[in-house]
């Protein structure tokens, strides 16, 4: 039986075994003799050459079933999603420090987990497959490991001490995968290094017979979601940056750019921007819409009985049965209509961000100021409003970025992430200029309040009617002064951010008169 017919015969059985995963019917590719399987965006591709080669020693149906079990378990169990893949890669990289080695270690670990899961929980032919695959280098070690932990004879020998260590890893405990992959990588590190060295001398590489795990396995949506989850999970910016820099080429080849998903080649990926973008997506800041206005027109609202003296014009002839008799005849009760008026919806927003020396450099560590500004930016852009940026340190000496109102997320993020260092002074003329570029925009300012001309800023805010959301990082005398100076203004809300989790507490454009008396200040 040829491979296509074999797949069609085996596929329903395999699908049922794995409880009907949402993946399409596997396809056949000519491929090479060495690699059995490729996965591209959930599509399993089985190599015909591999199948033909192995058919001499193994039943065709068994080959296909084992390959499909392996492929589906990657989809159903490990890595499951792109975030888990990135996390495992990140942990392996911490041990080996090299991209190639980390990728290979991750692939091996995911194979061990997936195959062991399958062997333990399903009726699978995977052991038979390994029995008939080549056993050299790392694959020899892994086959010996399978022998020990599955309890089947696969014809592999040696590496006792290494296998002892590898067999003590709890592969099926998902919660321990991060720790487990580190242990796993440490044990196989020297073999991987040796293999890499040999390949550099002679370019022939013995590939993983069950396929490599690359970004091809994932769709752009999955990559986007995975990066978002990864940004929230990593301990710091550097960790995210290192991983994204490693995978930059593959991401770009897939068509992923800093601005997100899309067709064609986008701008080169800037890991810093991407980090703040993805992290900000995890925090949704609500925006208070501007209050609705009475329009003055009356419209029919409900019925009431007609009485003598009430206008005939309001009689509803349909519900009055054509009669004009008090008690039976109904008239329309009218109410004043409401509308959003001219300022309907969310206004544009001017984001003022302090990037002076007292603030954290967003390209070195997680900056709450940048994260806060990014969250605000997202909130306004989602509401189809425009955002302008005023990024300043010592603005009077030219250390500032003025970005006019626009919808371009990447440009806005670039402006937000720029770090100047140095002194802190606002040029209020710039602010006035930007405010004049939109119709009564909101203002979002984020700073530690250690501003040289803070008094002028307070004075300025006391004069304007725009809604102001002021966020200060940490408490100091300056933030207290700002609070006192703007206390009487109902259009200014002040928030304190101590950690990134404080960001969602901010309500943009919140106006005090809409809040209860226990409004959270400071």
């Amino acid at each position, binding site marked *: 039986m040829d491979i296509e017919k074999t797949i069609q015969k085996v596929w329903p059985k395999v699908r049922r075994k794995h409880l009907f995963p949402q993946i399409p019917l596997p396809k056949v590719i000519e491929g090479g003799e060495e690699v059995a399987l490729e996965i591209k965006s959930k599509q399993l591709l089985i190599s015909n050459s591999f199948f033909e080669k192995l058919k001499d020693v193994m039943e065709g149906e068994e080959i296909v079933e084992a390959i499909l079990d392996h492929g589906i378990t990657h989809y159903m169990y490990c890595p499951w999603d792109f975030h888990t893949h990135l996390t495992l890669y990140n942990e392996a990289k911490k041990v080996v420090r090299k991209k190639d080695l980390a990728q290979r270690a991750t692939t091996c670990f995911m194979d061990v987990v997936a195959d062991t899961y399958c062997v333990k929980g399903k*009726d699978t032919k995977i052991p038979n497959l390994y029995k008939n695959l080549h056993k050299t280098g790392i694959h020899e070690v892994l086959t010996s490991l399978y022998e020990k*932990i599955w309890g089947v004879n696969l014809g592999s020998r040696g590496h006792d001490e290494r296998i002892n260590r590898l067999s003590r890893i709890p592969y099926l405990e998902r919660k321990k995968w991060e720790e487990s992959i580190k242990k796993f990588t440490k044990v196989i590190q020297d073999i991987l290094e040796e293999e890499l060295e040999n390949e550099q001398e002679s370019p022939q590489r013995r590939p993983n017979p069950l396929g490599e795990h690359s970004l091809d396995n994932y769709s752009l949506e999955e990559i986007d979601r995975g990066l978002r989850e990864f940004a929230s999970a990593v301990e710091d910016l550097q960790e995210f940056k290192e991983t994204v820099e490693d995978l930059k080429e593959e991401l770009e080849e897939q068509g992923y750019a800093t601005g997100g998903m899309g067709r064609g080649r986008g701008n080169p990926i800037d890991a810093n921007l991407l980090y703040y973008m993805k992290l900000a997506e995890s925090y949704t800041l609500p925006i208070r819409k501007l209050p609705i206005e009475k329009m003055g027109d009356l419209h029919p609202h409900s019925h009431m009985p007609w009485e003598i003296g009430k206008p005939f014009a309001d009689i509803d002839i349909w519900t009055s049965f054509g009669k004009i008799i008090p008690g039976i005849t109904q008239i329309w009760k009218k109410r004043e209509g409401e509308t959003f008026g001219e300022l309907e919806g969310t206004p544009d927003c001017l984001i003022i961000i302090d990037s002076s020396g007292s603030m954290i450099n967003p390209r070195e560590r997680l900056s709450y100021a940048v994260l806060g500004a990014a969250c605000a930016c997202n909130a306004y852009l989602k509401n189809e409003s425009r955002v302008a940026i005023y990024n300043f340190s010592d603005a009077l000496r030219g250390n500032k970025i003025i970005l006019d109102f626009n919808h371009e997320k990447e440009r806005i993020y670039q402006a937000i992430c720029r770090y100047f260092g140095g002194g802190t002074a606002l040029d209020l003329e710039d602010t006035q200029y930007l405010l004049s570029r939109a119709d009564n925009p909101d203002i979002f300012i984020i700073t530690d309040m250690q501003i040289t001309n803070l008094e002028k800023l307070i004075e300025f805010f006391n004069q304007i009617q725009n809604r102001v959301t002021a966020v200060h990082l940490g408490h100091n005398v300056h933030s207290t002064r700002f609070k006192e100076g703007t206390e009487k203004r109902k259009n200014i809300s002040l928030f304190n951010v101590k950690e990134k989790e404080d960001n969602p507490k901010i309500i943009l454009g919140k106006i005090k008169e809409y809040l209860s008396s226990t409004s959270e200040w400071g």
Partner: protein
Amino acid sequence: MKNPFESFHQVGGRKREIPLDKILQSKEETLSKILNGYEHLLKNEAKDLVWLMQYSTVIKAYSIAEKGLEGIEYTAEDIEEFCYALDRSDQIPYLITGPAGVYISALCNYAKEEEITLHLRDLNVKVNLTGYRLPPNKKLIVEGNVGDFTGIGLDGGELIIEGSGKNYTGAGMKRGKIIVRHNLGFNTGHGMTGGEIIVGGRIKGLGKIVGGKIFEREHLVFPNEGVKPFYF
């Protein structure tokens, strides 16, 4: 009425036991026994979470550790697991590096293997007293840095530290060899009467040495003309 999901019973629920399950179970059981022995030592020797490093307290702690380990079957990997368990505060109520070091030394000294390698590079704490009383025909290799009093009272074994040590390394050692790839701290070899300490990097200071040999970057620094044997 027929259960529509009946045919799936065979498909989803079957999970067979594989040797991995037994290996992991046995690992957990051994670790738990080793931890019990350690907690017993702490209850006896460090009730108030204070442990004074003295000649008599070390000897007493070691004899309690020896008793605590009676009847436990373990391997070098179990010792390593224990070291990492010490590092994780959620598993051990408290870590006191002195008794912990004595206990780890006892574990190594009574292990079945003649050569033990502990991969401790990722350990956050630096364990003191590693290799205490390491007997002849035993080789202990530690990958990573260690703390104070490493290899004290060494009794013929070979201790290799693939990292750096701190103060009082090899104090009171009688025979055997300590090889340190990188650096050592003050009072190295204090009171040692025999054996060799070979250091690949620098030694901050020597102690009062009675006998034996100490090499620093392949140069004999004890005995030599500037440093004479000390007589207590």
